[in-house]
């Protein structure tokens, strides 16, 4: 518990530091273009890694093939087509429920 408190506090302070960085300390400077390019790739790289970690892995081991894989693929297809957060959530949860009920 103490370690968890420390982790959350550290992440909170660090995150505020990242958010406040350019609007306070560096207000008069601009981000170098190369750095900005790298930062713009943080979201796709990290989020895809998080998909891999939470969908395909379970505590570091490959999750056995099942409904989650299929529902994940359906959700990804809907996300690609609609680019809508709401439709993706609906399609993903809907297909996992349907598949669980059918199989």
């Amino acid at each position: 518990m103490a370690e968890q408190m420390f982790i959350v506090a550290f992440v909170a302070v660090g995150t505020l530091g990242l958010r406040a960085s350019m609007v306070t300390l560096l207000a008069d400077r601009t981000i170098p273009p190369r750095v900005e390019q790298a930062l713009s790739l943080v979201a796709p790289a990290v989020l895809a890694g998080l998909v891999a970690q939470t969908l395909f892995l379970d505590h570091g081991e490959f999750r056995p093939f099942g409904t989650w894989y299929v529902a994940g693929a359906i959700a990804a297809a809907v996300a690609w087509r609609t680019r809508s957060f709401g439709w993706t959530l609906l399609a993903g949860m809907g297909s996992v429920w349907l598949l669980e009920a059918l199989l």
Partner: protein
Amino acid sequence: MSVAGAAGQGSGGWFATSGLVAGARAILPLSIGAFPFGLAYGVTVVESSMNDLLGLVASFIVLAGAAQLAVGDLIDQGAPWFVVVGTALVINARFIMYSGALAPSFSGYPKRWRIPLAHFMTDQATVTSLLYNERERAPRKRLPYYLGAGLSFAAAWWIGTTIGVVIGTTIPAELQVGFAAPLMFIALAVPSIRDRAALIAAAVGFSVTLIARDAPMNTGLLIGAATGIAFGTLAKIRTTPAVADERGEQPEEVPRG
């Protein structure tokens, strides 16, 4: 800078209250999406080995869903504290970019407001505000608009999280709430892939995270993300020798609610 000094924008004071409502209204479709996301996060907190109250507090003081979910996941896996913190801060490194994009508008705000306001710099509030700032230049309108958008979006996240933590254990297993975590990452990841470099970053980040699953201290995601960013950057450098035309780029396409 004094508050009065920040005003000076003619009559009506330095803070146009109507902007609060306008910002909240503009972001509403995204706030509606944040509610189930928060709900699912709350439920995953209850199901993980993370302390429930601490998971709830994190929604208020961290206010970043992807990082919060990763923290819960890594704590659950028993990762060392510095890996958990490091991974969360890498996930949140995108806020430096948002901070840079919002800096021109923040320079018109009172200094003591800047850090508290920065706390509400979510993906969604940033993009909503940048769109508004393109057509509105007065700080007395920009500030309340940003605050209205940021605060109302955060409120949806807080309400969702709170309900999720409270009802967490009563949700039956058949509802597969655990699937909400990967699902939310899919819903965020796919719209972030807008060009070839982003696709390479995502594909490499995804594959290397899987390949590095046995890396010591649960550093697989960190290694995957860093490799993905590196490969994506290389791809960008090779395709765009002149980088100047990239400067005005908008950060992050926001999924529609």
